[in-house]
């Protein structure tokens, strides 16, 4: 039984069980099965042999789940897009993905009932399941293809490690579906007949409503970025009293600090705290570790854990030679969870993917080392950074700034506090002198840039210069700019 059949089975045996809750709207497993079948029939009839991706544009609506499953049941991958993305970014993604159709929740709602029919299934293991777009260093987002086999490898591991109770779990869905962290809660939830509890960005923006929603959520498995949990922890009532059923916290997307883990263990004494690590190209997460009092006592920087069975992680040097234990180098991941590559970008695929000991492998660009049989993440070898779990190529922000008529040149750097990136700062050379106040100029530039880039990629700070400082070699002196922050 593959993942799709597994999800569908709940629709047959427990059609009234709740698959998804968002904004007080619910979707049952029966509805999910019936309506995704109907959508699959519609897509097959409309597009025939054309297996181009189906883009799904929304914000955590139940219909997005119907659209995802409808697409894969018709043997087409889906491309999840969040409505928070600016139109120009969406247009770029659509152009690169070659999507045959953009489905919105409204489109799914309007799908006529008469077209309901069970389609024949045919998605093979190596068939693309979804394509997730991430920041690309040249300003063009790149689409990571994840196959059914990649996803099944990941979900099988998660299910074996956590032994989720069938029909007994409520998974917190904090990340938008366009961010691969959401794959963890979405498919662990659907594979076990669980309920996905989505919190919208409006709730996240309004703490009072957020805590109210969490109190009544019944969440048993918390899946979020560490920053989100850290934000929630500021409220003292965020404890077992607010979430009495929570049994585990699963973190991915960025560094989990011992402070956050320690506070969670204190406030939720009956819950487990898990740290995981992995890039989108290796399907959400490849390593994990349960962080308990012993681990907290032993390590001042938390390990990201052990490798999932069936996959392999090695630490290599610049010549891709494997380094001994305790030496720092680039993390490479090999195994069935590794993506076949980037959509329509054979150049980028050839750079990052290769064969390693008979398995498909990906060079992550992450630095790390093995110690005590555990992997430790220690930063990046390039200009990629993480902000609130979101992966950002600084070159992507720079390219989009330079593309603006008012900007002659731009350098973007992270503002580092306590060893972690807190925000972005842009050093800008304007095309023409502008007498507007610094604040208003920054605000205007930020607003213009928000038409091209998602909010998490927008610099907080703009510094206007007449010229960039240069190194003796004639290159922009990034180090001296960084020092000025």
């Amino acid at each position, binding site marked *: 039984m593959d993942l799709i059949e597994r999800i569908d089975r709940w629709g047959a045996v427990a059609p009234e069980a709740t698959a998804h809750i968002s904004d007080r709207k619910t979707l049952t497993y029966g509805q999910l099965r019936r309506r995704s079948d109907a959508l699959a029939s519609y897509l097959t009839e409309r597009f025939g042999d054309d297996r181009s991706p189906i883009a799904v544009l929304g914000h955590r609506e139940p219909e997005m789940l119907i659209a995802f499953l409808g697409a894969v049941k018709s043997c087409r991958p889906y491309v999840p897009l969040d409505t928070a993305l600016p139109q120009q970014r969406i247009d770029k993604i659509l152009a690169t993905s070659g999507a045959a159709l953009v489905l919105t929740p409204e489109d799914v709602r309007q799908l006529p009932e008469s077209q309901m029919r069970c389609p024949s299934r045919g998605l093979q293991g190596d068939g693309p399941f979804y394509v997730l777009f991430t920041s690309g260093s040249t300003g063009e987002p790149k689409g990571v293809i994840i196959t059914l086999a990649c996803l099944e490898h990941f979900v099988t591991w998660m299910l074996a490690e956590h032994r989720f109770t069938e029909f007994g779990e409520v998974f917190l869905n904090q990340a938008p579906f366009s961010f691969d962290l959401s794959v963890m809660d979405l498919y662990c939830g659907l594979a076990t007949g669980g309920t996905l509890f989505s919190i919208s960005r409006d709730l996240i*923006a*309004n*703490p009072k409503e957020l805590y109210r929603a969490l109190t009544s959520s019944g969440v048993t498995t918390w899946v979020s970025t560490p920053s989100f949990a850290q934000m929630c922890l*500021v409220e003292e*009532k965020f404890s077992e009293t607010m979430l009495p059923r929570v049994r585990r916290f699963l973190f991915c997307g960025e560094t989990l600090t011992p402070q956050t883990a320690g506070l969670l263990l204190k406030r939720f004494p009956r819950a487990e705290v898990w740290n995981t690590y992995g890039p989108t190209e290796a399907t959400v997460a490849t390593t994990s570790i349960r962080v308990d009092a012993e681990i907290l006592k032993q390590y001042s920087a938390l390990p990201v854990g052990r490798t999932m069975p069936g996959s392999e992680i090695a630490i290599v040097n610049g010549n891709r030679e494997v380094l001994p234990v305790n030496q720092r180098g680039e993390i490479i991941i090999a195994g069935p969870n590794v993506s076949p590559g980037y959509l329509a970008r054979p150049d980028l695929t050839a750079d990052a993917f290769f064969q390693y000991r008979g398995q498909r492998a990906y060079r992550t660009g992450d630095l790390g080392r093995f110690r005590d049989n555990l992997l430790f993440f220690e930063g990046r070898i390039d200009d990629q950074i993480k902000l609130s779990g979101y992966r950002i190529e600084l070159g992507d922000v720079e390219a989009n700034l330079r593309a603006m008529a008012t900007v002659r040149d731009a350098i973007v750097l992270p503002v580092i506090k306590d060893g972690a990136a807190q*925000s972005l700062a842009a050093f800008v050379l304007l095309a023409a002198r502008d007498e507007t106040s610094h*604040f208003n100029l920054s605000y205007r530039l*930020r607003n213009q840039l928000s038409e091209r880039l998602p909010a998490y990629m927008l610099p907080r700070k703009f510094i206007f210069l007449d010229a960039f400082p240069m190194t003796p070699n004639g290159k922009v002196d990034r180090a001296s700019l960084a020092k000025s922050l």
Partner: protein
Amino acid sequence: MIAADFSDKVLQLLASVAETDEVLNNLDLPLYEYQVLDSMRTVQLILMIEEEFGIKVSPAEFERESWRTPRKIIADLQHRLHL
């Protein structure tokens, strides 16, 4: 005098969280409208205020309207301190 020192200190904390000095110059700047503050920065500010003045602001009872501008933040905190 105490109130003026208090206001200055609050504004400095706000400027450091918001990463802009505009909050020092314009006390009526709509902080959320201009994206000077968001949820994450609001809780950072809540933490700094607790550390600096010992004033506890509960995020679960927090209303954005009460911190809409630098002036409103000062007034809200003064009210909490009964200054």
